[in-house]
């Protein structure tokens, strides 16, 4: 079985690149092995866990089930691209830190990329919509609670709702809405 190679031209984290890839390689393989973008994590390699999520042309994808050759002409962002060249964090990265949304950190890059995609829409999501939008990622450490809080707070802040954002607190039990009315 002879190997086949192809040259891929794309933009990664804002920089034009070209790379020879094995036509069977996944985008995860290319980003990790050829560009050493190791924030792109491998948790299942079949699109179940979301750890390898990157943004391709403004949309989040599991890069493990996206062939490297499909990246031709695409604009790709990984977590490394969210930090400014001087090391300044984006608001969502800072929120993950401040809200304790990071434990082992292995699912964090994927979660942050999807959060970034959600927040870019400029929409205000309901809690249920947010949970659904983030549900393509699995995490075993955090129970998702603080991740939810980080994303929701950042969303509200971006919408200028600073007071509301501060109310999204860990133990602020009183402001938590009742579940759906009891029939």
């Amino acid at each position, binding site marked *: 079985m002879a190997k086949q190679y192809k040259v891929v031209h794309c933009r990664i984290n804002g920089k034009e690149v070209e790379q020879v890839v094995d036509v069977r390689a996944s985008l995860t393989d290319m980003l990790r092995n050829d560009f050493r973008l190791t924030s792109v994590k491998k948790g299942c390699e079949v699109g179940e866990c979301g750890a390898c999520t990157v943004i391709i042309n403004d949309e989040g994808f599991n890069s493990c089930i996206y062939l490297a050759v499909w990246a031709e002409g695409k604009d790709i962002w990984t977590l490394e691209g969210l930090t400014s060249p001087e090391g300044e964090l984006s608001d969502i990265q800072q929120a993950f830190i401040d809200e304790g949304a990071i434990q082992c950190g292995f699912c964090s890059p994927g979660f942050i990329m999807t959060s970034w995609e959600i927040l870019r829409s400029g929409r205000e999501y309901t809690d249920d919509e947010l949970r659904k939008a983030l549900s393509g990622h699995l995490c*075993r*450490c955090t*129970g998702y609670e603080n991740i939810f809080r980080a994303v929701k707070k950042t969303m509200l802040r971006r919408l200028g709702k600073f007071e509301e954002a501060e109310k999204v607190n860990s133990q602020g039990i009183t402001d938590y809405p009742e579940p759906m009315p009891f029939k």
Partner: protein
Amino acid sequence: MSKKYIGQAVTRLDAYDKATGRTKYTDDMCDKGALVIRVLHSQVANGIVKKIDTSEACKVPGVVRIFTCFDVEEKHYFPTAGHPWSTDPSHQDIADRLVLTDRPLFYGDDIGAVVAEDEVAAAQALRILEKSVEYEELPFVLDAQEAMKDGAPLLHEKYPNNVLAHTEIHMGNVEEAIKEPGLTKVEGWYETQPVQHCHIENFVCYAYGEGDRTVIVTSTQIPHIVRRVVGQATGMDWGKFRVIKPYVGGGFGNKQDVLYEPLTAWISIKLGGRLVKLDVPREETFISNRIRHAIRYHIVSWMRPDGSFAARTFRAWCNNGAYSSHGHAIAAKGLNAFPQLYPCDNIDGETWTVYTNRSVAGAMRGYGMPQASYAMECHAEDCARAMGMDPLEFRRKYLMPVGFFHAFSKNELYSDTFNQCFDKGAEIIDYYNKVKKYKNQTGDIRRGIAVSTFWYNTAVYPIALETSSCRIVMNQDGSVQFQLGETEIGQGADTVAAQMIADTIGMPLSMVHPVSCQDTDVTPFGTGVYASRGTYTLGFSVRQTALLLKEKILEAAHQFTRMPVYNLDVVDGVIVRTTDGRELMTLGELALEKLYTTDGSQHLTAESTYQIKSNAYSFGCCFAEVEVDIPMCRVRLLNIVNVHDCGQVINPMLAEGQVHGGMSMGIGYALSEKLMWDEKTGRPLNNNLLDYKMSSFMDHPRLIGTFVENYEPTSAYGTKGLGEPPTCPVAPAIRNAIGEATGLYINELPLSPHTLFREFTEAGLINDSFAE
């Protein structure tokens, strides 16, 4: 000692690196030129490998070598449990594994390995190889009680009826006690299922030669234990191996076992020290790493009219899978907990740990207590109901009382923890009002609320060695690095240790740096993290070592300031004269002077070991509120609150995170997770993250994790175990809440639609016209 950082929600020290993606985990550190190993797993549940024809697989371009079980010339059997070694042979773990075996005992056992230049070649060769194995298939057994029957397939010759161990406890006289007139007998069978840890980073390791030694970089909780076991598995001196632990993407007990480090090191040695990497695919993580034991319980209580226990019996059958791993320790923990949680004068208890032809069970968050808590707290609920008592009041009355002393462990319940946790949780979830509100419901959709507690302790004293070592080294600017045997695996061990050191010496946290990546060549000896021990055990050696360093700092301060040591202290990184509060010099000035002085230059460092000879109860509770859609056989978790007493909370943000994660794992355990095997073939059925349902973002309500803080008197910093306890009470709380809603108290996990459909149908809650 100042208390500037202890008790504060300090941001974890590795958060920036993890939020920017620059944290290096094992696979991130491996050179991309590494050869790739893939394991050839047994495709029979029990058998003998007669032959493996490697000729076709060897022809795949890129294949470097194929090893089979027949290449293992020297058979060095080794144990895998991440237990401290015992120099007493009777306390050593059972050594029953080989790097590769010709006698596979479960579907997924390791019988060969492909080494190739890349993953594609390795996968292609593996597919060919799987078809090139000749087995003599043998009958297999998957159930623990079936495996104990005469004539069942025998897995290990030394263990008749497949019983790895059987232990009993007897207190008082049950036979006599049950003759008391007026007793009510409550009896139940409780069944827990096998589940997997599902850390998002699969197990991965790589090995290479360096000088006459082998370096192993691995995703583990227990680097020093890995070094010992690789030595045992290869028959080489333990010092011939150096084990490095980078950041770890979750462990939860699976990585408290030695997994594929011995095989990877063995292959590297066979290939002259070449760099080889074994990155376990998710499907293999499920079946060929470790799982949580499925345990079946039978509990009987004889109760007096006031609800007190006259006598109780407890029996448990623990399905250990094909190899011993942690052995009997997990079943024994539940047996040990039974007479303590609800004390009773007359108790008979016994438990069997049994080999079966299933994946190997080992440690998993809770170490037998998620299972035992399920059985004990389902049963407590059944007892309360049988006596017509409110389940919460029943618990308040008959749980371990304040002042309870356990002679063997020397554990004592110092505080009114249970009631404090119940009070706080009940208030948050509005328990009493909701209990009233949910009485006498009819209709298809019903709600219920209930509570559960659990038994847990901290660390492994007096069952096994508890030792912790720490080293602190001061730099020219007065900042320090510290190293510990307790590993950072995501729980935040590095951060809490740094908080302790900063407060004990009296310096800013920004000047305290963990050496997070462990290396058995330089990290002081330690057994790693497990048993919810980390914060408790490291506290002892951290405190002792920080005080030793502080002593040296003050001696140096005396040298440079002429002031007596007893008039000096370190406050916020400054040497202060305590008599008038004058600041004499900074730690930076002191450290610089001490290193470069031409009169007694010294590098300021301290290192010490503390052997811990205490343990501590760590209790709490869970309240769960559910809505059950009876026709749909679905449970929606509406609210859930865990309250824990882990003593002094060192870092509320990290502690809350531990509770959330444990609750989440408990929710999956209660409602959806179950690893399954085909009864006809012994093949696993759902070893992937699509078919195995760990709880996702959509399956949770808001998780509320909170604390009561009773300073633990045995502890260096007042703290005690928290890693595992949050998982333990969740499943029984949810089961009891479903019972409150529907009147059906189901003694089996998970409470998935499949289980509920069967139970609801049998109980006539739903029409059984769909059942056929």
